[in-house]
């Protein structure tokens, strides 16, 4: 697309209105590329990658749950009524006990006791959530964003070239306030190189 825009700009060197149209096209292309990058950032992970995250979390949750139960009390002869206790503590200055660690411990114990069933349910839910949507692994996402970022940079360089072309023709154009200073201050030669 960028090559076509460049051709369009070059072909319209004598026609200001066509150059302005070309600039509008380039700006549309920039907006599209920015939206594409945002979409790539928000695209979901594949179900298998999400399940790997689940597994990592489940390992940690189960370990923390067991650690929080103070199992060592069972072998301590000084405890008369030894048993497992959920971690419910009242911090100094707090009117009510903090039940959050206990709730997390219970969740960890559920994971420990019936992880395969929970995993299957989670997998089904995730499959429903990503149904019909394009998914990307972290590696693929990074590669696609890098590629789109490169194309965006080319389009931004092309936009600056178009602005200069119009200014040289005596046409006043407004640059965007968020134009990249690095491109705006580039020499024509370096800018042409950046535009590909």
């Amino acid at each position: 697309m960028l090559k076509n825009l460049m051709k369009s700009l070059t072909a319209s060197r004598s026609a200001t209105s066509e150059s302005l149209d070309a600039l509008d096209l380039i700006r549309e292309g920039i907006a599209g590329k920015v939206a594409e990058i945002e979409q790539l950032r928000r695209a979901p992970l594949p179900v298998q990658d999400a399940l790997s995250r689940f597994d990592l979390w489940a390992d940690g949750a189960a370990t923390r749950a067991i650690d929080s139960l103070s199992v060592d009390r069972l072998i301590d002869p000084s405890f008369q009524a030894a048993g497992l206790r959920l971690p419910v503590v009242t911090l100094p200055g707090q009117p009510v006990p903090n039940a959050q660690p206990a709730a997390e411990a219970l969740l960890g114990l559920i994971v420990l006791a019936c992880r395969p069933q929970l995993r299957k349910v989670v997998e089904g839910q995730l499959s429903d959530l990503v149904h019909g949507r394009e998914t990307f692994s972290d590696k693929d996402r990074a590669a696609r964003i890098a590629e789109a970022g490169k194309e965006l940079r080319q389009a931004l360089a092309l936009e600056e070239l178009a602005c200069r072309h119009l200014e040289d023709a005596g046409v006043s154009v407004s640059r965007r306030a968020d134009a990249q200073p690095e491109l705006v201050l580039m020499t024509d030669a370096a800018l042409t190189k950046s535009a590909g």
Partner: protein
Amino acid sequence: MPDPSEFDPTRLTALARSRDRQKAQVRALSERYADLREHRVDIDKRLRLARAELANHHGRHGFEIEQQVKQLQGQYDALTSQMAEVLAEQDATAAEATEAGQLFRACLSFATENGLMIPPALAAEAQPKTFAPLSAQAGG
């Protein structure tokens, strides 16, 4: 660190010129608006006088005054319409001038941070703003 040979800091001058041109355009539109407003105040005064006169005259003379009122009202409406157009243009130009100013400052910062040669005419703008403490001013 970008390669300094790839940059042309004199482009800052063109950006500053563009910013200044747009600022000047905003000022010109503001003055144009004030002129139109002043003219409309004058027409409004004449219109009130003509209406007061019309209330006291009838017949041929009254007809002439009525025509005058119509003419003045037309001028008043035309000026109101022009004022609205100028105001809309002023708003749009002011927004563009603000954007041009922001871009210029961003480019000036980039040039300063990367050790590019700042055009002499813009050297003062590239200096960081320093303010004397109030106590220093009070102490004279």
